[in-house]
């Protein structure tokens, strides 16, 4: 496939990427936006949502080049990315780059979590939005964060029998958070709750194991001193979100565990490389939109317009901090895995072997934890919480790529 060149390249077509690409195009620059998914919108506006369609319409009108199903797997030269699609490989050169790589769910291992039909909360929602029929299915939604409410409502509205929502955070911290929300956010939450009438929302409650032969049949939950078993077809379970940092790290951008570090113009520690949205720290939709706008303006050399948005961004960041504090993971969750529970699902490495090591590198070398196809994207978030280990260096290819793609 032919190589391409643009003034600005945006990686990620979720809310931050879409707004960034539109702002860049409005400033008269040539811009390409790529995403590994076949449709734009990211996870929150996945697929055929009205918001994604409206932004895509705008992007097309502005002449944004949209590259679907395109995975960045390497940065072989300065200001150049190597990209793979189902059809082949190409290189894309940029003047400036905006990373809007989003976030993934944090999964915690517990006995039975590898059974088919135990999925992420966002994971089950993504699959349902991709066509999976959930009508009549018994669903338990568990883990932590406001995403659980949105997922439960989506499932219910598509005919699922949502048995309960198990939120690990305590009732007092959820209440404190609700009271600290700006009115708009509070109304959103009330609206969500209204759509969930009849579904128990248990705080201080979490899954301790999942049972089933070849697929999930029931989940055992704990709430205070009580444990009980809940028969279900799907367990939708995610313990909050963690940013996707691999590409930023590959490019040499300074990253912390909470996200890519950026200055007030959303520029990373690498000149000409910007980051926006969940990749810079989990903050929700509104923060992603304002960061995307700021990054788009700044990457087009339009700093004055970027500055006008700093106030809005600051308000959204305060909300993000309240969210983080309210849904912090409780220490008891570190006791979920048993010695024989797999932590690394790619290489089937159990907890006993992993915790026998003293750091990530040793675990990788001695047990192969984090060395499979997901390259530690799933077990990394678990191990960080369970053992406090930070992910170390990132090496190309950042995603498994075909030999043919890498042989250039």
């Amino acid at each position, binding site marked *: 496939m032919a190589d391409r060149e643009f003034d600005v390249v945006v990686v990620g077509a979720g809310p931050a990427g879409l707004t960034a690409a539109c702002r860049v195009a409005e400033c008269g620059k040539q811009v390409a936006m790529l995403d*590994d*998914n*076949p449709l734009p919108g990211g*996870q929150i506006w996945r*697929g*055929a949502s009205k918001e994604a369609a409206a932004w895509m319409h705008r992007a097309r009108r502005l002449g944004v080049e949209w590259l679907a*199903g395109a995975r960045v797997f390497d940065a072989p030269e300065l200001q150049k990315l190597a990209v793979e699609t*189902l059809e082949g490989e190409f290189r894309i050169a940029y003047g400036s780059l905006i990373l809007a790589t989003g976030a*993934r*769910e944090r*999964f915690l291992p517990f006995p039975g979590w*590898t*059974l*088919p*039909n*135990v*999925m*992420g909360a*966002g*994971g*089950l*929602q*993504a*699959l349902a939005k*991709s*066509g*999976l*029929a959930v009508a009549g299915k018994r669903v338990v939604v568990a883990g932590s964060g406001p995403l659980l409410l949105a997922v439960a409502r989506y499932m219910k509205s598509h005919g699922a029998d949502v048995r309960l929502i198990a939120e690990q955070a305590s009732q007092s911290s959820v209440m404190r958070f609700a009271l600290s929300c700006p009115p708009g956010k509070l109304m959103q939450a009330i609206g969500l709750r209204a759509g969930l009438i009849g579904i128990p929302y248990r705080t201080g409650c979490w899954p301790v194991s999942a049972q089933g032969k*070849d*697929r999930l049949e029931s989940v055992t939950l704990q709430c205070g001193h009580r444990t009980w078993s809940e028969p279900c077809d799907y367990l939708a379970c995610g313990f909050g979100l963690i940013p*996707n940092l691999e590409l930023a790290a590959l490019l040499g951008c300074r990253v912390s565990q909470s996200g890519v570090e950026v200055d007030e113009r959303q520029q990373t520690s690498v000149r000409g490389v910007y980051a926006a949205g969940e990749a810079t720290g989990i903050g929700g939709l509104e923060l992603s939109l304002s960061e995307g706008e700021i990054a788009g303006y700044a990457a087009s050399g339009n700093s004055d317009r970027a500055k006008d948005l700093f106030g809005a961004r600051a308000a959204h960041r305060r909300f993000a901090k309240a969210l983080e504090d309210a849904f912090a993971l409780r220490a008891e969750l570190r006791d979920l895995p048993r010695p024989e529970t797999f932590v690394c*699902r*790619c*290489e*089937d490495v159990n907890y006993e072997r992993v915790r026998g090591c003293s750091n990530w590198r040793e675990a990788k070398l001695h047990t192969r934890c984090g060395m*499979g*196809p*997901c390259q530690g*994207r*799933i077990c990394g978030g678990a191990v960080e919480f369970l053992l406090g280990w930070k992910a170390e260096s990132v090496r190309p290819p950042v995603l*498994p790529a075909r030999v043919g793609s890498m042989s250039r």
Partner: protein
Amino acid sequence: MPDPVKLTVNGITVDVPAGAMVSTAVAKAGAGACRRSVSGEPRGPLCGMGICFECRVTIDGRAHCRSCQVVCRPGMEVRTDG
């Protein structure tokens, strides 16, 4: 409504809505799992967004395709390892 898409999963013909991902077809065909893990456990989709690689299947002879990120096309032949 666009016509449903007809494809096969392990030789079984299934109809899915236009735009559905291969993961949907695998579930609809009743395949227990997408793949077997290195120690032989059945595995299905976890993240639904191309991160976890648990939903890998073989599509038209190409192994290790993430079924949650590939749109079903008419006549596709999908194989699971479950």
